[in-house]
């Protein structure tokens, strides 16, 4: 009973247009909350910065790569410009000079042996023959002396010299003209003696 009454009242209200159940137009109510775009702006800014950094770095690396390839190209051009004949000639010259220097440094100066014997020889002793051998580092002498004392002095003179390592005296015998004939072998300390100091 009551429901029927309510329905009638409702119908009357609709007919009279006193009540509107659905609006004819919709309008959204925008409420601005401070800082609501902050995350979005941060995201955009970060993306722009990272993208900018990416392209900046990419460009920088590309320019560095170009520099390297340019240097490589210059090296390749230099390689083409090489004067290989000059290089070969100079290398050969270097080797020849090295060989020549080594031979000059080891050059044997035999006159030093003669000078040494002359400087150590006593006036009472005379050399009849001599033999100098660089390989075996010795000097063989056949000599004559007036007295045994002269021979002893001569041995002492040779031994006193730093160049001599050992002095070996052979048989001493009276020869022609009253002189004493004897042989002597001088062993040198080093074959460096024959080389230029």
């Amino acid at each position, binding site marked *: 009973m009551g429901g029927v009454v309510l329905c009638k009242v409702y119908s009357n209200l609709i007919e009279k247009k006193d009540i509107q159940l659905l609006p004819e137009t919709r309008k959204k109510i*925008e409420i601005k*909350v401070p800082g*609501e*775009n902050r*995350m*979005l*702006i*941060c*995201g*955009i800014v*970060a*993306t722009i910065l*990272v*993208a900018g*950094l*990416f392209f900046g*770095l*990419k460009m920088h*690396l590309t320019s*560095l*790569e170009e*520099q*390297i390839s340019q*240097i*490589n190209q*210059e*090296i390749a051009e*230099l*390689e083409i*410009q*090489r*004067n290989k004949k*000059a*290089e070969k*000639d*100079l290398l050969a*010259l270097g*080797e*020849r*000079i090295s*060989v*020549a220097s*080594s*031979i*000059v440094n*080891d*050059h*044997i100066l*035999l*006159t030093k042996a*003669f000078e040494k014997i002359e400087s150590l020889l006593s006036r009472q002793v005379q050399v*009849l*023959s*001599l*033999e*100098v*051998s*660089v*390989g075996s580092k010795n000097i063989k002498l*056949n000599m004559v002396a007036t007295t045994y004392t002269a021979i002893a002095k001569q041995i002492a003179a040779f031994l006193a010299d730093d160049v001599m390592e050992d002095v070996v005296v052979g048989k001493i015998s009276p020869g022609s003209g009253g002189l004493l004939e004897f042989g002597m072998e001088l062993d040198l300390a080093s074959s460096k003696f024959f080389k230029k100091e």
Partner: protein
Amino acid sequence: MTLTSTRKNTIGAILIAVAALVFWVFDLVMYKQIPIFDSAISEHQAVLQKRKDAQQNIQSLYGTYQNRLSEIQKFLSIVPEGKEIAELISALETIAVQSGIEISEISIAEQKGAKTSKKGTRNVGISIKLLAPYSSILTFLNSIEQNIRVIDIQRIAVAPSIANTLLGIDIRGEAYFIK
């Protein structure tokens, strides 16, 4: 279309995440490559500079070599290329004449079976017999020692000559050459 606050936050968060990822994966890797490239450039530049300097030095040296070729050739005759036995005999004869000595016998030959020395040279054996007074021996030896082509005398024997008053001299030596 307007974005809701939640969507804005979501998009913002995604953008930040993407930016972080790109930074980590690309930017940072590229940044780390810069010193490697810089060092490579320095090395390449050093190599280039060295090669330029070397080339310049070679050119300058080669110029000097060309200008002084005759002097260099003379110096290199210390150890000639090849035995040059004819030149050696001629030099020994000249030295003997200048020393007032007459050569009674001379023989020059490559030492057969001799290997190339450590110096990279081979030897020519020289044997000379002379008759001379003592003073001439010293002059002769001195001249040999000062000869441009190096002759090393390995052995000398001096003894009185039976035939005359002069001394008989027997010299054994060697000269060098490059083969």
